[in-house]
């Protein structure tokens, strides 16, 4: 194996991304979850910068900057404030216990690599081998949303999924057009603000952020 330096670097960052995704899957404390989320965003920024530098795609610098501001600084800051305001530090309960979740996660990663193998053969980018990791991290964050009970951790799952999508876009096609990226960034921002408002209302109504209270909302 004699890969170019940049490719090795990107592969390393991709591996870190996947590792962080697993770490988030196992993490029970919400505060650490947010820190992990910020860290994952930072890894994403690094990998985007490496891709931008090595392929001379100047617009990727902008999206790296955008990611840095939004996902590494602004959103975690909002989350921290929210946690303090709502006073929820713990997310003890998961629906499935953590070892079982890990096993399902491993199955998902294998599935994702299988899925990505034929596609990455056609991709002409230097990042082609990371497509499997991107898909895997999307599926893992989805899994996190399913297994968690507290509304906050579900929102973090949602944002992590967006990280995975962003990584997939960079690795498959050197990123999406700037307009689309800006649009998604705005969506994420507005989405998390709305989530924040909802948290307060959910807690006000049920005196808890546990989402099983929402089960009463169905029709019959």
């Amino acid at each position: 194996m004699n890969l170019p330096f940049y490719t090795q670097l990107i592969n390393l960052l991709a591996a870190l991304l996947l590792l962080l995704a697993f770490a988030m899957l196992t993490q029970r404390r919400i505060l650490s979850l947010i820190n992990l989320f910020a860290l994952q965003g930072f890894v994403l920024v690094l990998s985007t910068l490496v891709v931008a530098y090595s392929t001379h795609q100047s617009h990727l610098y902008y999206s790296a900057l955008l990611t840095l501001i939004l996902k590494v600084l602004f959103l975690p800051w909002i989350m921290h404030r929210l946690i303090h305001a709502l006073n929820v530090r713990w997310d003890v309960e998961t629906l499935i216990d953590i070892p079982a979740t890990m096993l399902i996660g491993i199955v998902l990663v294998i599935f994702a690599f299988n899925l990505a193998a034929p596609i990455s053969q056609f991709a002409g980018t230097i990042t082609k081998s990371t497509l499997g990791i991107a898909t895997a991290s999307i599926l893992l964050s989805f899994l996190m949303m399913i297994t968690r009970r507290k509304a906050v951790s579900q929102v973090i799952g949602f944002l992590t999924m967006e990280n995975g999508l962003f990584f997939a876009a960079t690795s498959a096609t050197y990123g999406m057009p700037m307009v689309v990226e800006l649009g998604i960034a705005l969506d994420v921002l507005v989405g998390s603000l709305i989530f924040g408002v909802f948290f307060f209302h959910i807690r006000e109504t049920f005196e808890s952020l546990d989402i099983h209270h929402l089960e009463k909302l169905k029709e019959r």
Partner: protein
Amino acid sequence: MDASFLQPIEAAVTLSVIWIGLGLIGLAFMRAPRLVSHAVFPAGALVSILLAATGLWAIGAPPSAAILPAGLPDLPFHVRIDALSGFFLLLLGGVSFGISLFAVGYFRDTEAATLGQLSLQYHVFLASMAFVLIADDAYLFMVTWESMALSSYFLVTTEHHEERNRKAGFIYLLVAHIGAISILLCFGVLHGGHGDYTFEALRAAELSGFWATVAFLLAFFGFGAKAGMLPLHVWLPEAHPAAPSPVSALMSGVMLKTAIYGMIRVIYDLIGGIRWEWGLTVLLFGAATSLFGVLFALMQHDLKRLLAYHSVENIGIILIGIGLSMVFVGSGHPVAGALGLIAGLYHTLNHAVFKGLLFLGAGAILKSTGLRNLNEMGGLIRYLPHTALYFLIGALAISALPPLNGFVSEWLTFQASLQAPLLESSVVRSLVPIVAAVLALSGALTGMCFVKVYGVAFLGQHRHELAEKPREASRWERAGMLWLAAACLALGLLPVFMIGQLNNVSQALINAGLSNEAMASDWLWLVPTSSAQASYSPIVFLLVIAVVFELTYLVVRQVYHGRLRRSDPWDCGYPEQTSRMEDTADGFGQPVRQIFAPVFLIHREIPRADDPQPVFKQSVQDRHWYWLYRPIARFTEFLSGHVGKLQQGRISIYLLYSFLTLIALLVFAQ
């Protein structure tokens, strides 16, 4: 034509946009109801008459098209106006002119907020109908078709505080959407995966026999739902009575006709290559619709419901004309086909005019007396003499009595059916006369029904204690009815002019018109095929009738002069006469109810012989509810009950659904 000169299409688009603008003005100035009713609606009427002129102009002019600077990026709106669109624009403009004039008077006392909304919905409704008629791509057609359905839904539910009206609106919206889905699917079949939804592309697309038939059936049922064809007619008798009368007039007179337009546009123009089997389908549905409509009309005692069932009947007659035309065109007899098409189109125009007039008359009665039940009316001719005269003209026209317009188009339909010996297939040859017989039967029953309506409502003694003496309709209302009544007379007395215009439409659509001999006849005589076979001159007929009437009158005057004795009518020697002894609307329909008993679903409650206060109750219902609509509703309920089990209420389960779907899709994509 000079390119810098104004084209019909530009005029039509401008006028339609002005309509929308008027509606918005009405909404903006809803604090000044006087201004809305006496400025916006007359201005709308002015636009109507200009649009009618544009339509007439477009029938003779070559087709003109344009691309509007609206719509989605890369998907602009195409519009085009040809002879067929022109004819229907003429119909829309001409009829809505009278209705808008009537509306000025009818809505003058409406509450300000309601009036503002009414003005918006009314004018948007008109403009959407105009855009449906000039649309030249499936996209604009469907958008305006839906806006037409929605604006008319809001008009139907104007008096939404009554639950009955909300229910009527719901049924209307439901059937309209089922129809719209069917039309959408039809366009999908027609375009066959080319990605281009302009009518030009749809016209050019070659369809295999099977898919052409599928497209025909989808179009036929989609537009049939809007037109009120059996068995999709159920919304009509519910929605028309619920809507304010000018709106009922507009819906029945014009909106049903846009469905006929759509049917002709899609089947003749876009699908093309008509087969006689399709024609036979249309013909049989038309005959069933027509007979069914009139039978149920006879059973009604709500005047507007009765008129709604007559709309069902007349749509049947129009479909018979079009069906005949399709049978002839499909078996290679374009001249006879042109006759059928012209008969159908002429009846479309005539029905719009006289049904508009009758609904306005019903509205005038409702406005001045508050009555819609025929059994409570009576003797109204003394209070509403003008309305009575106009209603009489409308009633004579719908009963297809010469010299009015209804007769001309039904007679043309009969003439078209008399061309049946041209056909090769003996089955069809023998079916056509049966359909013609059904048409004759429903014509006669219509006559009976309007003898009932006119006799019970306007003649005799009034049977209901009214709080105050009914007032005659206002000048605006009378002007609206006068316009439509005059149109009934003009279309009846001078049919040749309009037939000439319709011949242009037919030439443009199926490359065939009436025979040369027919077109060579002068303005006095209407000759459908050749003068050796049949000809009709309404003016000569009118003169003969007038002379005979005058002579009889004079003779009677001479013979009985001086021996006149004034007494109560229909006295029959009884010492005392009350209004309870008059024949009622339900009583009038009784013989038909007996003869056609299996058609109806009749509930009777007969009082016991020793009941001190005997009450006899009876209701007649539509069987379609039970054998068609109830099972569908039950099945839907069953299905949604099972689908509802998916809804657990747990967010994790919902997320799991999306997750599994994602996984499944990924596996498939692999």
